[in-house]
């Protein structure tokens, strides 16, 4: 039985990939329908996968509570919040009900916004800690960063009008050069990685084993 499934995995990988490739350049209603169906199924399978995650999270925190570890109060808070959301959502049967929007807007929105906004603070400390001229390479990197600062903040133009125009030169020459090459490389690399997995050479992304 297990050998059937193991062979089945490789067959699924190959056949599904071929369906999507042909669908991309060949116009055929059956092909298109199959691809759309497969795509929709994946979303449903992923929804089922969330059960695995929620189970794993719950088990870990129940264990912490059982052991009465240092993190016990926090684990209780986590489980309480999680089940509050689940129960509110399932009871009101909608994610746009006033009760659900209330907990969503008062917990998830501000906390996510705070975390997102925090990255500017980390840019500040990284500028101090990491943008140092340790080598010629990092000198180039920090000089480019400096010139873009001149360009973006109006105040530098007031200090000396040459500063932003220097920034503009760096901007025009550097901004798309490196990125274009990286993007081409990523496209080719995706093909390599995809091929290796589709032909069954790299098994790790399926969980390795055997």
């Amino acid at each position: 039985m297990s050998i059937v499934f193991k062979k089945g995995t490789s067959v699924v990988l190959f056949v599904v990939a071929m369906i999507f490739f042909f669908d991309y350049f060949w116009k055929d209603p059956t092909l298109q329908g199959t691809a759309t169906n497969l795509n929709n199924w994946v979303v449903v399978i992923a929804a089922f996968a969330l059960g695995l995650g929620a189970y794993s999270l719950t088990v870990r925190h129940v264990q912490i509570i059982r052991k009465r570890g240092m993190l016990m109060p926090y684990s209780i808070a986590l489980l309480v919040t999680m089940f509050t959301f689940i129960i509110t959502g399932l009871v009101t049967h909608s994610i746009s009900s006033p009760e659900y929007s209330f907990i969503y807007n008062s917990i998830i929105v501000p906390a996510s916004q705070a975390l997102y906004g925090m990255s500017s603070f980390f840019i500040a400390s990284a500028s101090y800690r990491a943008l140092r001229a340790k080598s010629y390479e990092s000198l180039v990197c920090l000089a480019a960063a400096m010139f873009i600062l001149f360009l973006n903040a109006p105040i530098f133009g007031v200090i000396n009008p040459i500063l932003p125009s220097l920034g503009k030169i760096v901007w025009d020459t550097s901004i798309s050069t490196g990125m274009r090459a990286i993007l081409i490389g990523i496209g080719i690399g995706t093909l390599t990685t995809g091929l290796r997995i589709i032909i069954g050479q790299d098994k790790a992304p399926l969980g390795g084993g055997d």
Partner: protein
Amino acid sequence: MLIAGRLSWLVVTLIFSAIMLSILYLSSKKIYVPVIREHPGIAAIKDAIGRAAEMGRPVSYSPGTDTLYSTKYAADTAAALTILAYVAKESARMGSKLIVGISQPTVLPVAEDVVRTAFTFEGKPEEYVEEETVQFYSPDQWGFSSSYIGMMYREKVAANFLFGEHAAEAMLISENASTIGAIQVAGTTNVYQLPLLLVTCDYCLIGEDEFAAAAYLSPDPVQKGIIFGQDLAKLICIALIVIGSILVTFGSNLISNLLKM
């Protein structure tokens, strides 16, 4: 019926795939085995795990916040899982504790399997603790990153690896890891986060470096050959760009018209 504008895609994909697969075939039959330089990033990973083992502090790993079925970063996640297999083996061998933080539930079963297999392979299956070695946090990027940051502080990790797709949370994780004093190796194909990771991490695999590193780590050394196929594809791109630019200078749009077919 062929869809208009997709012919160039078909030709490019076919040619590149043919090159990669034939190089792979040649090298696996030992007819032509290309010599691939070891990527400095791999040495950096090894060093970081070694240092963590010396200090007796754990190693943390994140395979990214995108799914297995992402339409843009699926290969990125896959490469991160291949590198995870290597990191798990190395840390089992050197005896440092590994903690893997997972954001996407679809990645969770795979990562668990990868780490479990690697530990068994190194003869230390008892070091894999269910729900503890591979920890699920949250599919939401901010829920994930806050948990990951908290974990790094509480466990005092000595080495942190960020592979796979990370969005804006990359900077949060990497800068906090540096506060703890962890050595960091990162890699991503998300071009908007690359500059941030490059500046804040000790070593960064830029874009396709990550794919090449994943291929380089395949257990069978002969199969590294496919990386040479990748190089050849790139050389073709360079040739197209250079010839195309020269033709454009003389007023011919031949190559770009061909590519738009």
